[in-house]
């Protein structure tokens, strides 16, 4: 469990990145910080492994104030995955994964053995083990990044827009992979993104942030969608624009799901719940799931 106690961060240039932020991040769940740039979401994430220290307030991991812990040691116990994977370009895939265990003193051979298993875990072929990061595709690099994050078997996994730089198809794949992994491993994941769809897909708990690190709303995706607390949240989740209220239109060849602006959102798969040619269907509506269309 990670607890923020009225944490404030003001950078030396005077920018208030986070303002009096308090929150409990439950163990074994995915908490997503979502907001536009300048909302302090990355700063919040980086405070958990002391890449950034708060100006005031404190952060506790399982009851221990991290301000009293040695940063390097703390970081070696927390998984970290970032955009563009952040892999070391001069080390082979397998050595990238084995890096942190070896920093913690694990013998090279054992670290490499475990690294191979981790490649299996994240769905990478072992034949890639001896390549350099630049020889992999963006999606593969990101998987290696996840494997490296898991290498010390940490309780906490910090993910800073990890899927921000890959194409939509690969991103969807990686998101599903993360959900599968999370079912197996049950880590306490802190995930930062600016993509509300990604936040709703992955988050058990979603934290919507305003500029200056102020919490706009905290809750499960369903709670937030059903009851956006104010106009800002409604705009952010797209509820006000009718982006998420969809209906069916018959286009001759079949039914197409259309949003309120008339933009084609996808097709309806599975059982139709009612026989009308125009029926209301939310994205998480019963018996129906909208596919495609809205991937940014």
């Amino acid at each position, binding site marked *: 469990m990670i607890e923020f106690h009225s944490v404030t961060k003001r950078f030396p240039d005077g920018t208030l990145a986070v303002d009096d932020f308090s929150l409990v991040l439950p163990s074994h769940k995915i908490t997503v910080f979502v907001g536009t740039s300048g909302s302090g979401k990355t700063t919040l994430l*980086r405070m958990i*492994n002391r*890449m950034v220290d708060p100006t005031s307030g404190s952060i506790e991991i399982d009851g221990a104030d991290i301000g009293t812990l040695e940063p*390097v*040691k703390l*970081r*070696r*116990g927390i998984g*970290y995955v*970032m955009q*563009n994977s*952040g*892999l*070391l*370009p*001069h*080390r082979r895939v397998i050595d990238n994964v084995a*890096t*942190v265990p070896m*920093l*913690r003193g694990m013998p090279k051979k054992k670290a490499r053995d475990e690294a191979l298993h981790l490649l299996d875990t994240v769905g990478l072929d072992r034949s890639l083990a001896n390549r*350099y*990061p*630049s*020889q992999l595709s963006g999606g593969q690099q990101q998987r290696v990044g996840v494997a*490296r994050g898991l290498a010390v078997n940490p309780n906490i996994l*910090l993910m800073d827009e990890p899927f921000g730089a890959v194409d939509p198809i690969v991103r969807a794949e990686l998101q599903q992979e993360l959900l599968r992994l999370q079912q197996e491993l049950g880590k306490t994941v802190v995930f930062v993104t600016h993509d509300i769809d990604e936040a709703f897909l992955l988050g058990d708990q979603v934290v919507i942030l305003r500029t200056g690190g102020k919490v706009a709303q905290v809750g499960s995706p369903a709670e937030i969608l059903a009851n956006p607390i104010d106009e800002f949240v409604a705009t952010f989740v797209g509820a006000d624009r009718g982006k998420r209220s969809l209906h069916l239109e018959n286009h001759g060849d079949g039914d197409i799901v259309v949003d309120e602006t008339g933009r084609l959102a996808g097709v309806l798969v599975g059982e139709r719940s009612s026989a009308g040619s125009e029926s209301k269907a939310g994205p998480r509506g019963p018996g129906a799931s909208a596919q495609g269309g809205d991937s940014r």
Partner: protein
Amino acid sequence: MTWIWSNLDLIWDRTFDHLILSVPSIILSFVIALPFGALAHRYRTSRAVILTTVGLLYAIPSLPLFIVLPFIVGTSIRSPLNLIIALTLYGVALMVRVVADGLGSVDRDVQQSATAVGFSGWTSFWQVELPLAGPVLLAGLRVVAVSTVSLATVGAVIGAQSLGSLFTDGFQRGIQAEIIAGTLATVLLALVLDAILVLIGRLLMPWTRRSAIGVRVRPDTVAQEVTA
């Protein structure tokens, strides 16, 4: 031509003398430049002070330096040590800036991520920043190697044996073949040392051969910048 064939032993001896002067100077330049370059890279004030100082160092004309140096460090004027110190100074003058620039060229994201996964400052320097600065360091070192080899010939004027002795001797005695032999051997030696450095670079930095990301610098373009 006949002069060359009948004096191969002499050419070989002078080549060896030349190596004794230049190789230690090149290595020392690199080793000494490393901490100064790192310091220059680290802080803005130290950067200004260090880079200005080494810039001035390079502006000292070589001949007076060869003559003055023995009085400062207490070696004899013809001692190879005297010349090695002078050559090292020039090498350091070139190399410090290269080290600072090389460290500056390392991708910020990679450094950040190294810190985030738990590299301490010290391990990050040796295991991440220095290796990733490698291509730039190599480019600089190649320039230092070639310039040291050519500069070492000047030592002949003050009587330190090197391939330069073939110029001075050939000039005084009017043996044109000896001057040509000295020139060719110097160029050849520079090329050989350069090739060895490239080879070492390939062995130490295998990732640069495979379209690496992170730091990507073509050594020859940097070399041109440094000499310019």
